[in-house]
């Protein structure tokens, strides 16, 4: 009888075990996208040595922790992946990708000025930013994670985007 009483309580109290912010599904999907972006964009030769640096503008994000996990497990050719988070934009020009999260979107203009002359893929996640300088902008489409590409913004930084990536993107001019 005691066993049954315990079970009755369990029926009433099962909890949302995975609504835990540590298990952020959107962050995991974005991390997988970012890894795919890294593999499907070609950087100039001088960027193919040393660590592959992903700079995250901001902190305290579940995406940042997903990127750390990814960096610990994966490489890009012979390049180790290094993820760094910055609270200011000084020193960000030593990056391959700069990810600008939604809450740091206002810094995009400054970032663009700062990285002039470098080959850096700017990835954002606020509607409209692909028209304001980012090469790839995360959007949601039909309840799913999707992305826009502004090819001209990529080419401006001497980056070549693979046609596979282009096919799956919403193209922005």
């Amino acid at each position: 009888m005691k066993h049954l009483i315990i079970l009755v309580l369990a029926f009433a109290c099962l909890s949302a075990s995975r609504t835990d912010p540590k298990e952020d599904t959107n962050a995991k999907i974005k991390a997988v996208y970012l890894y795919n972006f890294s593999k499907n964009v070609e950087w100039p030769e001088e960027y193919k040595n040393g660590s592959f640096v992903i700079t995250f503008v901001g902190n305290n994000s579940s995406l940042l922790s997903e990127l750390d996990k990814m960096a610990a497990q994966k490489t890009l050719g012979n390049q180790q992946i290094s993820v760094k988070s910055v609270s200011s934009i000084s020193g960000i020009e030593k990056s391959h990708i700069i990810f600008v999260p939604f809450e740091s979107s206002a810094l995009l203009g400054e970032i663009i000025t700062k990285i002039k002359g470098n080959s850096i893929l700017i990835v954002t996640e606020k509607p409209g930013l692909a028209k304001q300088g980012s090469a790839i902008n995360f959007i949601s489409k039909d309840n799913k994670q999707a992305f826009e590409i502004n090819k001209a913004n990529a080419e401006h930084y001497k980056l070549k985007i693979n046609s596979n990536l282009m096919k799956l993107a919403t193209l922005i001019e």
Partner: protein
Amino acid sequence: MKNRTLLLLILFTGSVNAQLDKLREAYLYTQSDKLNLDSARILIDAACKYPETKDDPQAWYMRGFIYKELFKKPLPANREISLGEEAFNSCKKAMEIDSSVEVKNNNLLILKNLSAITNNTFGGALDTVNYSKSMECLELQKKLIRYIHPKASIDSVEVYYNGIMGSYFQSVYEKSPGKNMNYLKIAEDSYNKVLIRDPSNISANYNMGIIYYNQAVSLIMNKLDYDFDLASLNNIQEEALSWFKKSLPYMEKAYQLNPHRKETLIGLSGIYYSLHDNEKSEQFHKLSQDMDADQK
């Protein structure tokens, strides 16, 4: 105890003949000093076939008692439901032969005891090996409740036991998500049985929402690898999306039934977040935080 006193009265005041001696002997084998239920079973089965005693309500009552004891003897997971069924059928037979209040009351006492044992067996057998026994217990319990309380709703019995079955298998599945889909299916089927009978059952609605939500989360967090190419990533997203969408109406129903349950608010915030509806996700997140603030 009352049962046994009545048995003694019945058995030792009857006319003396060979078959009644068998009944007495069978009874004596149920007593602690001479306890031998297997011998009692042989004797009572024979007595219920003899022409002199086969229509004797006392014999059938006795049979019900002995089979009930046989059913109860092992640990719950080892009990044979067929023995419980025999006990039930024997008491029913006794009451069919003699519809007097005394016979009815005596047999109903056995049946009520049998119902408690069945309830205990349901819980005791509820594990991943013996769960089919728990399902059989539910069927026996429904028959017993129908007989003991003819006006009681069987729906409430289904809701009660299927709710327990669902939450047990849900919790087992959640320990290793994606590993044994059969457990998930049992949980899902059990909650569906609850919801067919009680669509406003908050726990079943909420838990169905959680089952589907966790399926989607598990798919993304455990199956999606960083190496997945864009096409595979898209497929995983599609599959997860269908689980999230399946989860939403159950969680919304749970919210509609009780808008002040924090777990539901957190669940809805999580589902809308995963569906990229950040406005609604924030709305429910804020409601759950307000609830925390109210409680401080």
